[in-house]
Structures are given as structure tokens and as C-alpha cells.
């Protein structure tokens, strides 16, 4: 468990960096994890193909919310094309917890990434769950 709730996760959970909404975002997407009722919304501001601002909102466990906080932090300043290719491995490295053998909790961690992709690709066009995973 100390693995699961590293300092960094708890820090982002208790003090999320980019929680909130953007006024008139260029992209806004929301995804749910029906298994546990977790919900993440991500708002993006995009200028000249670059993500210039990002906010997240939602409710869920420490893993999903901390991952959303870290991911939104990470993508600000990133070209959209690069963000579209942000991989599952990159996310897991970012949050730094061993989840590959935890099929339930990995869904929590990947929810923000799924939300980001739904936003960037447009709902219905995002890579499917198993492609993200």
C-alpha cells in the first residue's frame, strides 16, 4: 500500500494543481468509470496546436484524481499531436506506482488519460480502452 499511496499521489490528491474549470474551453471532455462511479472532466485551451491551459474536475479515488492532476500539469505546453500519443506507459511512469498487476485500480489511473483522448480525438473517435491500456 505504501507503494500505492506514495507521497506524490497523496500530495496531488490533497492539493491538486489544476482542479477547476476553464471559461470557454476549446475542448472539454468527461469520462466515467462505471465500476466505481469515478468521474473526470478535462478542459483544454488550445492555441496554434499547443495546449496552453488545462483544468480537471471530477470525483473519485486518490489514484484517479491524482493522476488527473499530474496529467493536466504535464500536458500544458505540449503540442496537441504529442498529447494525442501520450501512452499508458507514460502515464504510469508519471504517477510512478506499480499498477500493471492491478486490473481494477489501473482503470482508475487511466481514466484521466481516457478523458484526455476523448477530448483530443472527439468522443467516439478516441482509441478504445484496450488500445489505451
Amino acid at each position, binding site marked *: 500500500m505504501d507503494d500505492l499511496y506514495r507521497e506524490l499521489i*497523496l500530495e496531488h490528491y490533497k492539493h491538486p494543481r489544476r482542479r477547476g474549470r476553464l471559461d470557454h474551453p476549446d475542448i472539454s471532455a468527461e469520462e466515467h468509470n462505471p465500476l466505481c462511479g469515478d468521474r473526470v472532466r478535462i478542459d483544454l485551451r488550445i492555441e496554434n496546436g499547443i495546449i496552453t491551459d488545462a483544468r480537471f474536475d471530477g*470525483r473519485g*479515488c486518490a489514484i484517479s484524481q491524482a493522476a488527473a492532476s499530474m496529467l493536466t500539469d504535464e500536458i500544458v505546453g505540449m503540442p496537441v499531436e504529442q498529447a494525442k500519443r501520450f501512452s499508458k506507459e507514460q502515464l504510469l511512469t508519471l504517477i510512478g506506482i506499480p499498477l500493471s498487476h492491478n486490473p481494477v485500480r489501473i482503470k482508475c489511473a487511466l481514466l484521466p488519460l481516457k478523458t484526455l483522448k476523448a477530448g483530443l480525438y472527439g468522443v467516439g473517435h478516441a482509441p478504445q480502452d484496450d488500445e489505451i491500456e
Partner: protein
Amino acid sequence: MTASTTLSLFDIVALRREFPILNQSVNGKALAFLDSAASSQKPRRVIDCLEDYYRRYNANVHRGIYRLSEEATFAFERARGKVARFINARSQREIVFVRNTTEAINLVARSWGDANLREGDRILLSIMEHHSNLVPWQMLAQRTGAKLEFLPIDGEGRLVLDNLDAQLEGVRLVAITQQSNVLGTINPVAEIARRAHAVGALVLVDGAQSVPHMPVDVQALDIDFLAFSGHKMCGPTGIGVLWGRRAILDQMPPFLGGGSMIKVVGLYESTYADVPARFEAGTPAIAEAIALGEAVDFLQEIGMDRIHAHERELLGYALERLREVKGLRVYGPTTTEMRGSAVSFTLDGVHPHDVAAVLDSEGIAVRAGHHCAQPLHAHYNIPATTRASFYLYNIPEEVDRLVAALHKARTLFG
């Protein structure tokens, strides 16, 4: 602190030894299994019973004219008789073997429902139903144009029956859980049945959480259908029971078509077997049915009222000790009165999944989520809860460990 309990009634330590799985450690701590509401553990004799069938007399039932098949058929039908006596059915012909509670309810919705419901008819449910006693009725309503009506609950998580008679108007079927898998509430099924019958409605009881934990007598309750699952009552997965009143089952059309459920088959039409065979198409879960019979023997030798009393002791102790945990809210009745031992709660500032993960690190197995009762969670405006549930093998020390781990979760996230 340890509670005094009535455990001396039966030797709990010896009883725990009957469950091989309980003798292990998880994350370096002794396993405390507090998720029996999802699925119970199995005593050695049930596991042995499955193996014995495969090793000694594995053969299809109701078919072969040879020793093994006869032995398998005998054991299979004897299990049906055990289950019938367990719930005090009038006849073992009233016992239909299915896969689980979900299938039992779907069988009634498809067979009885499609044949009997018309547009405008009503089905009365409650907002605390498990999805398996909700979605089949939604599907039936969509097929037939019937309407769903819901009994509300009060602040203690108990059904509000003040308007029952008015709500029963035009109702053809009441489908209600006897014990909520989230709140633990035990519902007054006999009273509901009496009033439902007064307007000519039938009553289906979801017994998934009651049959494993308390004495259930279908004649005393005077209900029409009872659905329950073997895996929650020390039996195997893949076997469940639909009990129905003979006179009603006799009138119902088949559910699935195929082998075993027929009398005479022609190329274009067939006649159907009598109940219960009419509803048991194909090769049944033979080993599982026989092992369910073994589980029933096991439970009855201990005594369902003693199991209920033991759980009630544990529940009382748990409710008392959980009050010590700051920021913890229990959903459902706050006393042991008419209450089963599933205890769902939230902890301020800690998501139910995180609570469960901290408990897991202490070797304590609980469930977190919506427990297949999303409308109930929506009623409380929460996405999920953490649930601890107890059974005959749980001990007060496990309650103590639960409480200690909850304090730890608070500190970690506080």
C-alpha cells in the same frame, strides 16, 4: 477491546478450520474476509463434495441407464429435496435449479412476465433493489408496456409502507429484496405479501442476502417466488434456485428451449415437460447442485437461527465500534433490529476505493463500489460506499482490525 458474544453457542474456532481459505495471510497479515455478501467462502466438505462427484460418479443426469448416471441423478435430485426442505417448500417440484439469483429473476420476468403482463399493468419494486431485481423488470416493462413503481425508504434505510395500499393499485407483481445487500435492511416481506395478495398481485422475493443468513420459510412468508444463489451460502458458483408456488409454475411457459425440458419433440413443435424440468433446459450444473445440497446440510447442522444470532452479535459490535471512527457514516439502520450484517459506509475525505485499498494492505477484504445498487447510491447522492459484511466464520477480532485500519486510513489521507 473485545466483545462478549454468543460464540460459545458453537465452536467458532473449529468452524473456521472448516474453511481452508481462511487459513492464509494477505500482505503479511492474517486474512480477514469481510466480503461474504458478495460471495461466501466454502467449507471443506463442500469442496470435497464437488471433487467426489468428478472422481467417483461423474455422468449426465436423467439420461443414462447405467450405474454412474443413476447415482448422479439420485444425488442431484436428493439435493433438490434438501433445498426444498431448507426453505420449507411444499414439494421439491417447486425447486428449479438455475445459475444464480439473476437467472432466477430473469426466468420469472421472461416466462411469467411475458405471458401475463399487459400495457398499463404495474410492477412494484423498491429503490434499494440490486440491479438483478431491477433491470429484468425494466426490460419486461419495455417489452410489454408495463409500468414500474418504487417503494421509497426513510432516513434509516427502511421501506416506507405508508402508501403501500395506494401504490399497489394496478400492481400485478411485487418484486422485493428480503435483505438489502447495501443497507442490511431486512424488509417485512410477509406483511407486504399479505397486502399484495389482497389486491391479487404476486410476490417475488430476492433472497440472495436473506437465505444464506437467516431462516426463510416460504410458506410462513406466504410469497409466490423466491430467488437465491448457492455461492453466497457456502455453496459453489454456477448454481442458484428459483422456488415458485407449484400452481403458478405449472401455468408458466418455458424459458429456454432444448434438451430435458420436453415431453415429445416433433419437427415443427414440441410439448413441454412438467415442472421443474420444463425450466431446466440442457445439462444442469450437476456437481454444483449436489454440492449446494451439501452446503445446505452444513448450514442446517449449525442452525440458521444460530447463524443469524451470531451475525447479529457481530453486527451490534461493529455498529458500536464504527461509531468511534470520526467522519464515518453508516448507511442503513443504526441498530441490529430487522437488520442483516452488511455494513456500508463512507469515510469523510477518503474515497471508498482508497478505504478498501488501505484495508487490503492490512489483510482485510471488503468491497468498494456501488454494489450493483446504483439507484440506491444516487438516492444518497454518493457514487460508492465501502462495505464490510459478516458471516458465520467471522469473529469480533476482525471487527477490531477493521476499526484500527479505518483509523489508519484517516491518518493517511487526513
